[in-house]
């Protein structure tokens, strides 16, 4: 850790009211300012790295709301994540980490095969039986939480069904490379299908290279820098072969990571070009908001929008999704209080730190309910998973959709 980054924190406290874990606990150790202080104390030799200290640091959701709020440009969230990587240096990955990060995620076909039993599990009705009988109570609580988060999976992942090239509708205005992302393709394939169709309806030719691998963000979260770099090199190579105007993703987490490839692979100029081409789907659609507006049908829905951390804080995208929702005729858009506060999903945080995750989520749900909206829109798979599960339990249930699903439903003729 660079010492100067630590002393840059002027301790003004501007980060405190933005930090989801501080808001829940009011504890300085659970605040960005406190986390920076802890890392600084270690550097200065005032504190040793103890289990308790690591526990305090690990309470960070890595939502980076602190970075948005910091006057001095300190990114406490990223520093904590970097610290995890540093501590990992030289240590072997555990068997489970090795399995997921090295053997499964980099191979989309294996990942898809691995989730096939889950699809079967749902389609045969076994899931209903298992849930009803409470069989999961016999297994470790993390497994039960993971099972509970699982929404109904599509019949096939989008990677298997989408054409490698989707032609433009009407005169072609450019070519877009589509980065699928693991969870979007596996779980939210309908939303991603809508992404491709919206782009082609606006005159873009969409190239979806099927060999693409996971963006590498899960590796980074687990401190596996090598795995991240492998993924980055592979994806840069793959997309460099096409002449693209933009590389688009509808996953906030992937977008944030892909935009950092140039930084990760400093010696490869193609990585910088790759990163400069990356756009979140909402950015590209908002470019054509007027044109899109003319093609939309009325949707009389009460809608609110949750800013995913990886979109608002990591990529600074706030206006575009709102612009897109506001152009839908008859759609009643309501601003969400604390819209850019984390929903508690945080990668695998909701599995690893269930108690804090639930507290953060509860606050989000209360805010959503207060808007009176009947649809919650967001733009990142982690948030979609977390909020779909939580909002399905409300009475009446609140639907959760990706921005592209709303636009696709409003598009004339309807896409979905």
């Amino acid at each position, binding site marked *: 850790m660079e010492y*100067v980054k630590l*002393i*840059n924190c*002027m*301790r*003004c*406290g*501007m980060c*405190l*009211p933005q930090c989801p874990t501080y808001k829940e606990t*009011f*504890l*300085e*150790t659970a*605040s960005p*300012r*406190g986390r920076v*202080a*802890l890392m600084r*104390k270690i550097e200065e030799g*005032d*504190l040793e790295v*103890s289990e*308790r*200290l690591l526990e*305090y640091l690990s309470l960070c959701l890595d939502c980076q709301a602190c970075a948005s709020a910091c*006057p*001095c*440009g300190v990114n406490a969230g990223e520093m904590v994540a970097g610290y995890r990587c540093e501590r990992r240096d030289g240590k072997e990955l555990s068997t489970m980490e090795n399995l997921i990060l090295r053997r499964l995620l980099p191979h989309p076909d294996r990942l898809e095969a691995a989730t096939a039993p889950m699809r079967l599990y749902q389609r045969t009705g076994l899931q209903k039986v298992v849930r009803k009988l409470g069989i999961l109570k016999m297994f470790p609580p993390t497994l039960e939480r993971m099972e509970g988060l699982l929404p109904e999976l599509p019949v096939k992942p989008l990677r298997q069904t989408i054409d490698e090239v989707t032609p433009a509708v009407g005169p072609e205005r450019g070519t877009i490379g589509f980065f699928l992302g693991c969870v979007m393709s596996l779980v939210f394939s309908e939303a991603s299908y809508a992404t491709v169709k919206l782009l082609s309806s606006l005159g873009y030719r969409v190239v979806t290279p099927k060999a693409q691998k996971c963006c590498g963000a899960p590796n980074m979260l687990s401190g596996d820098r090598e795995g991240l770099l492998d993924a980055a090199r592979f994806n840069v190579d793959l997309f460099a072969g096409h002449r693209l105007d933009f590389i688009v993703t509808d996953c906030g987490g992937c977008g944030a990571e892909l935009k950092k490839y140039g930084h990760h692979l400093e010696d490869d100029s193609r990585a910088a070009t790759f990163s400069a081409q990356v756009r979140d789907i909402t950015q590209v659609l908002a470019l054509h908001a007027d044109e899109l507006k003319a093609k939309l049908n009325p949707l009389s829905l009460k809608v609110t929008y949750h800013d995913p951390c990886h979109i608002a804080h990591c990529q600074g995208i706030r206006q575009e999704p709102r612009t897109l929702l506001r152009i839908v005729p008859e759609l009643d858009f309501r601003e969400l209080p604390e819209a850019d506060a984390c929903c508690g999903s945080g990668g695998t945080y909701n599995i690893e730190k269930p108690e804090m995750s639930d507290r953060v989520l509860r606050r989000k749900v209360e805010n959503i309910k207060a808007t009176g909206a009947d649809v919650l829109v967001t733009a990142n798979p982690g948030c979609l998973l977390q909020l779909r599960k939580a909002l399905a339990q409300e009475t009446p249930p609140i639907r959760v959709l990706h921005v592209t699903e709303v636009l696709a439903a409003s598009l004339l003729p309807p896409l979905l």
Partner: protein
Amino acid sequence: MDVSFISELKSIVGEEHTLADKESLACYGYDSTPEYESRPGAVVLPANEEEICRIMARCHAAGVPVTPRGSGTNLSGGSLGRPEGVVVQTSRLNSIVEIDEENLTATVQPGVVTSALHRAVEAKGLFYPPDPGSMNISTIGGNVAENAGGLRGLKYGVTADYVMGLHTALPDGSLLRTGGKAVKDVAGYNLNQLLVSSEGTLGLFTEVTVKLIPKPQAKKTMLVHFPVLENAALAVSHIVAARVIPATLEFMDRVTVKCIEDYAKVGLPLDVEAVLLIEVDGHPAQVEEDAVAVRRICAEHHCSSFQTAADADEALKLATARRVALSSLARVKPTTILEDATVPRSCIAPMVKFIQDTARKYNLTIGTFGHAGDGNLHPTCLTDERDKDEIARAHKAFEEIFDTALAMGGTITGEHGVGLSKKKYLPRLVGESGIRVMQGIKQAFDPTGILNPGKVF
């Protein structure tokens, strides 16, 4: 701190709300004041008035020092505890007890964040004017203890002007109730006002009642550039002399403007010596009239550009320059020493000039911005704490700046409080008799000296 005392604290506030591990305590060794550090013996987060009184009584009996703390945004070291003492963090006492629309008052717990109070009262068409720069973080309890100011001080005054009633826990655990909802109250000494700006040395607030006013119907925001510093300062004096009292009259000097433009790219010209942000509010007709007068006076003082916001969005854009002043300065170097030297407003120009000359003399970068309308300036020295020589020069420069402020009839702190960092200057301001009277008052409230010891004097 001894284990049995910590378990007594736990029995009052609960295990979860008593912190004594070294990692937690390391995170309470600082507030927002650079260069000051002191690790407390324990930290407690009480849930209500009763728990605060019990903590006080227990600490009093054991002779253990108590330091109150809200969000730790103090800029004079006032919320730092002692190694043998307890820090009481009030963040959990965060409810707005009542907004009384008939009496125009709000009663809140001390841990309510200032901007939360703003939102709550403004939703009812009412207004709580004090708006310290830290208002999104700092608590009302802390605002009262430090008598916090803010950007609207010129027209609306400071926290003290709005505090009507207090509940204060005294060292023996008893509760002192001062003031209340009665607008007029002349019974006995004005303990209420005495407690405001007492910096946690006389008692711990457990409830605060503040005065509200109707929300101004309209406002207009203006951003004005001046190629010559003296002209900006004269414009400030002449606006007030023309009987126009803007809600906000903020100043930024050349160093600040350059840093803002470098980092935030808000479109400020680099050839100006000063920028003023002016906001007038009130009845729409009055606002129009005031805006015209402000424009005329600025033109008479040779401003090079005068922008008026057409709507709220544009007002926000113009105000951005002032709002990001501290941020922009803070990004230049790691250690930002922000002071609050304050002078009568007729002395703004000579004071800013003196600060610039002093910065040159000691080879320092000092950006000055602040509340020109009320003479409250924030000379901000950009340093690197690893450069001991630079830090020493910064201290010498500030010593001269404070002495000059005093010589001009000003004061050593306009809104941050004395705490630890200004206490050596206090005798120069209030004299021997001033210190003697203050110590006598301290003795009356806190005979054993357990309340925030070492602060103020």
